């Protein structure tokens, strides 16, 4: 089947079998390998991307379901060569060890912060229910997300 979508602001199209997962289309056909496949059982959240602005597990969606949608992956987060505040905060607060879960963590957190710009630590931890990290114990991930939230609130204020 022929599908077309917008990925990170760019119009793309491709020929896929209906059984192709969105993550397979992104990685294998578009070469966007920042979106990871960790578990293949819809539990780990390494594959989280945004579909029409909402976070989704791209291993639990068919590519054909995203036909006509706007998709944002981790590669689409940095603007003008400048890291997104979440990416910067993960760097500064050492919110990763091996880094495998990081793209999903950041895309999931970005969805949280667009809904709730000032989450409590508890709300951040609850939100990360669908993202597994097997290295760090989450502490620095949570710290990074709270720090990014603060930075982004400051940016929003400065823009007013």
């Amino acid at each position, binding site marked *: *089947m022929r599908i077309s979508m917008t990925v990170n602001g760019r119009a793309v199209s491709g020929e896929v*079998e*209906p*059984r192709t*997962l969105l993550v397979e289309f992104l990685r294998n056909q578009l070469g966007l390998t920042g979106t990871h496949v960790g578990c*293949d*059982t*819809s*539990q780990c*959240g390494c594959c*989280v991307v945004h579909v029409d602005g*909402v*976070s*989704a*597990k791209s*291993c*639990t*969606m*068919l590519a*054909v*379901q995203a*036909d006509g949608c706007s998709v944002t992956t981790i590669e689409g987060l940095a603007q003008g060569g400048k890291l997104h505040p979440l990416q910067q905060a993960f760097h500064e607060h050492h919110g990763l060890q091996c880094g495998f879960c990081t793209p999903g963590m950041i895309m*999931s957190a970005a*969805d*949280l912060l667009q809904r709730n710009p000032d989450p409590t630590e508890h709300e951040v931890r609850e*939100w990360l*229910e*669908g*993202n597994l990290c097997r290295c760090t114990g989450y502490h620095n991930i949570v710290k990074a997300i709270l720090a990014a939230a603060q930075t982004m609130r400051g940016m929003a204020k400065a823009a007013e």
Partner: protein
Amino acid sequence: MYAFNYHRPASLAEAARLLASNPEAKLLAGGQTYIPTLKQRLARPSDVIDIGGLAELKGITEEAGGVTIGAAVRHAEVAGSALVRRLIPALASLAEGIGDPQVRNRGTLGGSIANNDPAADYPAAVVGLGATVRTSKGRAIAGDAFFTGMFETALEPDEIVTAVHFPKPEKAAYAKFPNPASRYAIVGVFLAKTASGIRVAVTGAAPCVFRATALEQALAASWSAASIDSVTIDPSNLNSDIHAQADYRAHLVKVMAKRALAAAG
């Protein structure tokens, strides 16, 4: 995943026609259960009919004092709905506790109840609130009659859930003891005081959601934790697995009922 043909019908009528004309076809809405099932090759449909985007299955509306929710409405929409929060807050908080945020962003009410997973949350609300399930064949199926067994419902093979009407209870609450990994209910209890009496629906504990009639009778006599304590839950028909033995699940039914009672007020 086995290969299949994919359809995205433009209307409910077209979806129903496709389903009726392909005996090995299956419906896809949010896909948060069905896609993992396909990935594990536990299903081999000839055709997959994607109804997740059908406008006829969307929308949350106030009706007869209660709420009517379209079958393709996603869990996150129910959790975030001001209307549901105002009329039946227990339903919004149940939706907010399903799976994880990404599952809630895609998973749908109709998909959950049509699948009837023994540990799913929504069946407890449908039975606990005495809801009515509406279908593409114009049927209105009472919640009590909809769930017929493990992964089995009263739906005919070519019938599609279109909406669920939930009447407003006097008070209600849902309490679940989630599996810490999956967030599925090891035991979940939906308790409601309704115009037609007390309803207590239990999910996760047995092969299919059921009404705990002994608890209903005890709570009708006296709306108190002591009433729940006075009841004995028979473990003989409850599930035993690596997560919990039947007698532990029987114990949890009462603990969750008491938590729901405290939350309902």
